[in-house]
C-alpha cells in the first residue's frame, strides 16, 4: 500500500514538475525577434495562464500524498538515517517539508495573480511567484528522489 502511494506521489510530482517548468520558462523575458525558434523558445511557447489551476491542484494533491507518506518516513526512515548518522539527509528532508508548507501557503496568491484578467502591471509579480513556486517544486522533487534512493546512493 505504502509503495503504491509512493509511486502515485512520484508520478503526480512529475506532472507538477513538468507543468511548473513550462510555466516558469514561459514567463521569462524574451526577445521577439522573428525567425527560427530554438527548442527552449518552443518549450516556453505555452499559454502560462492555463497552467495555474492544474498546478495548484497538483501541488495540493501531491502534498496530501506526501502527508500520508510522512508517518512511515517518521517511524522507519528517519530513525535509520539517524542511526547511520546521515544528518544532512534529515536536514534536507526538514527543508523539504518547509518548502511544501510555504508552497501551500503561496497557492492562493499565485492563483489570484494568474486569474483573468491578467493585469500587465502584475506581470513581474506573476513571474517571481511562478519562479519561487518552481524552485520549491524542484527542490522537493529532487530531495524526494535522493531520499528515496539514498540506500543505493550512499551504500
Amino acid at each position, binding site marked *: 500500500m505504502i509503495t503504491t502511494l509512493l509511486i502515485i506521489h512520484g508520478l503526480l510530482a512529475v506532472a507538477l514538475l513538468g507543468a511548473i517548468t513550462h510555466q516558469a520558462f*514561459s*514567463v521569462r523575458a*524574451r526577445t*521577439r525577434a522573428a525567425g527560427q525558434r530554438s527548442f527552449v523558445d518552443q518549450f*516556453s*511557447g*505555452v*499559454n*502560462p*495562464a*492555463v497552467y495555474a489551476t492544474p498546478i495548484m491542484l497538483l501541488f495540493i494533491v501531491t502534498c496530501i500524498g506526501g*502527508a500520508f507518506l*510522512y*508517518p*512511515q518516513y*517518521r*517511524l522507519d526512515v*528517519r*530513525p535509520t538515517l539517524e542511526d547511520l*548518522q546521515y*544528518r*544532512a539527509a*534529515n*536536514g*534536507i528532508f*526538514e*527543508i523539504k*517539508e*518547509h*518548502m511544501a*508548507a*510555504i508552497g*501551500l*501557503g*503561496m*497557492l*492562493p*496568491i*499565485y*492563483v*489570484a*495573480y494568474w*486569474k*483573468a*484578467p*491578467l*493585469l*500587465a*502591471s*502584475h*506581470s*513581474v*509579480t*506573476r513571474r*517571481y*511567484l511562478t519562479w*519561487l513556486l518552481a*524552485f*520549491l517544486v524542484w527542490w522537493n522533487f529532487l530531495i524526494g528522489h535522493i531520499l528515496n534512493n539514498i540506500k543505493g546512493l550512499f551504500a
Partner: protein
Amino acid sequence: MTGQAAATGPAAAPTQTAASNQAAGRALIFSATFGVVYGLCFYYNWPLFAYYPQVNEAHFSGQLVETLGPPILWYGWLATAGLVAVAAAYLVPRAVSDRLWHGWAWIIPAAVVVVILIYERRWFVTPPQ
C-alpha cells in the same frame, strides 16, 4: 508573441481590475501571513497539535508525550499557520488589503524561504553530537 503576452490580451476593464485587486488583496494577506506564521510556528515550536504515528493519536496539549513515540509536528504547524492566515485574511479590512503593494506577494514568501534555509544550515555545519 510570448505566451504571457498572449494571455494578457487587451487591457482589462476597470471593474475587472478592481475585482481582481480585491481578490488578490485577501489572497495576499493569507499567503503572507501563512508564510510568516509558519516560520514562527516552526522556530518557536507552536504546533496546534502533535501527531504520534506509532499509536495513531493526535494530542492538542502543548507538551510532547515521549511515551507515545516520535511525534510529527508538521501537520500542527500547518494547521496553526492556516487558521491564523484565514483569520487574518478576513479580519484585515479590505481598505488595507486592497492597497497593499503586489510585490509583497512574492517578496514575503521568498524571505521566509531564505530565513528557513539560513536557519536549517545547522544540519550541515554542526557536527553530530
